């Protein structure tokens, strides 16, 4: 009892803020109760609004959790997080709607990656060859020119069957529409034009090997002393084997391209959706490794530069997405388990829901969308728990928790912190990409997807506490609920005493109110609700 009181004294502002939030929430709930309706139906709006808030909060959380762990561990504010959320959505859409394009694109990507896996081998070879410093600074530039020539000539010739933003018939918008109608129209696959496939594939592989050598040369010419470490025994063989595996994978995908994409087109949309999630997460994580190891790592101690850099990356990614998928908005169909509308729908109970795979369920007289409100919420909770277990129960999590406080001491214990940084960065960014593909069927696809999410996420983290995991969850929940309550009140209006007409907050007010809440909370609790006072 005494400790309870003293804990209350110490955290008085926290408890009062929490109390105020709960009172606001209770008032908000009370206002939504429909006094004229009968029985349970009175709470229809309450239930729907809370479920929508949970779902919005889930998406925000998927992005915010990774962002906050990355910031806690590396002090990197990754402003590209929203853009990667968007990439996740677009890549996921492509898997779900145009799997053949994904299969086509995988071959050149695998070939491009494979060359970089040989870097450790080149590193050892370069160390053995003694050349003059001037020459060792010159040749990587020549390598770069050669690489660009080879890849610049061959990559555009690689046949990827995709879409044309400029012509409606084969635009993403139309493909999306067809898919939502359950139609599949597979375009005629393209072939190599003007060069033989052997030259095309071999040339890209050669180009990527050249790129790997070039990168090694640049890195080696920057190294101050010869004080490198001897390679781990077996490391060279491992990188050679990795190279062979990835290059072979690319070639096999080329050879079996048609059967694989035909197989994917026969898959049920639910299975394809699962593939979409996996591919989106892998793409996000891969981009994460690329961004972290090439851009952030060299400068990550200058926080201002990292901030500017990731903002730049954010803008670049948005432009690339716009040029590939086009600016017009389009939709993503829901996986079939959440799309049933036939017999037995809308479901009256969760049993029915499972049996008839309905797209909606009736709760207290209101219709709740299975995918948007229920699936996304459950998934958010699953990820919340999974990441929590990862942090609390695994060695990686232990190192992350230690590194958040003192990464120098972690290094001194003999742990390769740099590798942990890369892993955590790619996991965090992968989570954001997952948020994107999960959210896409409910939000649709636009190139501004990332920006609005980035704002919501920053507000959620400011409210919850920037580096606190429970804070990220609480902040996301608060922002999600707040937004959905305001939207609901925008529809039914708020009755203000002595005012004739009900006040209807308009949708543009939503972001403003969210930011306002953040400002108020930051004024009373500068560290956010769960932030640690330093």
């Amino acid at each position, binding site marked *: 009892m005494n400790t309870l009181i003293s804990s209350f004294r110490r955290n008085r502002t926290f408890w009062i803020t929490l109390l105020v939030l709960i009172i606001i929430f209770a008032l908000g709930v009370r206002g939504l109760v429909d006094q004229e309706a009968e029985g349970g139906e009175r709470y229809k709006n309450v239930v729907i609004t809370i479920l929508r808030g949970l779902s919005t909060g889930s998406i925000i959380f998927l992005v915010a959790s990774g962002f906050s762990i990355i910031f806690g561990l590396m002090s990197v504010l990754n402003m590209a997080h929203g853009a990667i959320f968007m990439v996740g959505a677009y890549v996921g859409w492509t898997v779900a709607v145009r799997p053949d394009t994904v299969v086509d694109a995988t071959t050149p990507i695998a070939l491009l990656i494979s060359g970089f896996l040989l870097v450790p081998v080149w590193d050892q070879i370069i160390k053995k060859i003694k050349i003059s410093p001037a020459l060792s600074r010159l040749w990587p530039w020549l390598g770069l020119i050669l690489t660009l020539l080879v890849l610049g000539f061959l990559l555009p010739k690689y046949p990827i069957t995709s879409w044309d933003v400029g012509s409606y018939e084969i635009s993403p918008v139309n493909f999306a529409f067809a898919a939502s109608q359950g139609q599949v129209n597979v375009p005629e696959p393209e072939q190599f034009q003007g060069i033989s496939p052997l030259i095309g594939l071999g040339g890209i592989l050669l180009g990527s090997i050249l790129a790997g050598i070039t990168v090694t040369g640049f890195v080696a010419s920057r190294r101050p002393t010869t*004080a490198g*470490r001897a390679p781990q025994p077996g490391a060279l063989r491992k990188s050679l084997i990795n190279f062979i595996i990835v290059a072979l994978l690319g070639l096999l995908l080329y050879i079996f391209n048609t059967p694989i994409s035909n197989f994917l087109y026969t898959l049920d949309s639910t299975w394809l959706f699962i593939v979409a999630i996996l591919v989106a997460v892998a793409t996000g994580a891969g981009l994460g490794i690329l961004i972290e190891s090439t851009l952030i790592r060299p400068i990550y101690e200058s926080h201002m530069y990292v901030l500017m850099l990731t903002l730049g990356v954010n803008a670049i990614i948005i432009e690339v997405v716009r040029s590939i998928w086009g600016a017009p908005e389009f939709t993503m169909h829901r996986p079939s388990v959440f799309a049933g509308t036939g017999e037995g729908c809308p479901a009256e109970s969760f049993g029915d829901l499972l049996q008839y795979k309905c797209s909606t369920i009736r709760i207290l007289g209101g219709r709740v969308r299975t995918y948007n409100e229920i699936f996304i919420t459950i998934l958010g909770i699953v990820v919340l728990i999974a990441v929590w277990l990862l942090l609390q129960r695994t060695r990686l999590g*232990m190192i992350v928790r230690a590194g958040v406080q003192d990464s120098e001491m972690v*290094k*001194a*214990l*003999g742990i390769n912190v740099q590798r942990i940084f890369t892993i955590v960065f790619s996991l965090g960014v992968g989570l954001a990409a997952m948020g994107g593909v999960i959210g896409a069927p409910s939000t649709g696809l636009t190139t501004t997807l990332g920006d609005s999410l980035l704002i919501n996420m920053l507000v959620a983290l400011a409210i919850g506490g920037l580096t606190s995991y429970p804070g990220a969850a609480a902040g996301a929940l608060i922002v999600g609920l707040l937004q959905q309550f305001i939207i609901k009140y925008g529809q039914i209006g708020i009755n203000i005493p002595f005012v004739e007409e009900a006040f209807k907050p308009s949708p543009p007010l939503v972001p403003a109110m969210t930011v306002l809440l953040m400002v108020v909370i930051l004024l009373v609790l500068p560290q956010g609700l769960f932030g640690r006072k330093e």
Partner: protein
Amino acid sequence: MENNTLLKVNDIHTFIGQFHILQGVSVEIPKGKIVSLLGRNGAGKTTTLKSILGLAPPTQGQVILDGEEIQGRRSYDIANMGIGFVPEHRAIFRDLSVHENLLIAERKKGDLEKKEELIFSLFPDLKRLIKLPGTNLSGGQQQMLAVARALVPDNKLLLIDEPSEGLAPVLIEQMMEAIRQLSAESTVLLVEQNFIVASQLAESYVIIEEGHSVKSGKMVDLAADPETIHRYLEAA
């Protein structure tokens, strides 16, 4: 080099930012011995330890461990060669339990299990605190945990920075006893402001002043030389 030398620090220079902090520090540590690094506040003792570990990499000079030059390698590689570090101000991980604070120091699975008996015999208190979060420990308990953490993997060399700082006299006794027992199996480079502690533990010493190692020798000789002590160690 004599082959009973475990670590030889040879005239290293280290910059922190643009400041030239170490300007020629040499230390030699024979296998199985305790060497004490002495010097006033700000002399560069902690920086010397960090230079050895590569946390503040030296730009000049050599650090030779067991006959192998290790300067310029990455910190974690250096630590994995068998160096344990007990930093100034303990650096206990607040969000990890006592048990996790020990577990994180494992270099291979089972390290902790093998050393548990030794650790609990040196610091019996830790056994009862094992489940507590690191943030709940008192200063003295944190210091013991910091030393225990360095014992988890097999280390040939321990770098210990001011273990007696802020401890009550009883605890200082216990800490000294622990370090004495440790040195039976391992070599120790000990930074210590408390001259009485240092002189009872170490066989030899190196004095650092303003980034230079200025004097070294047998501890017994230093104890009998009040002039040197006054000149380099007492408040100026």
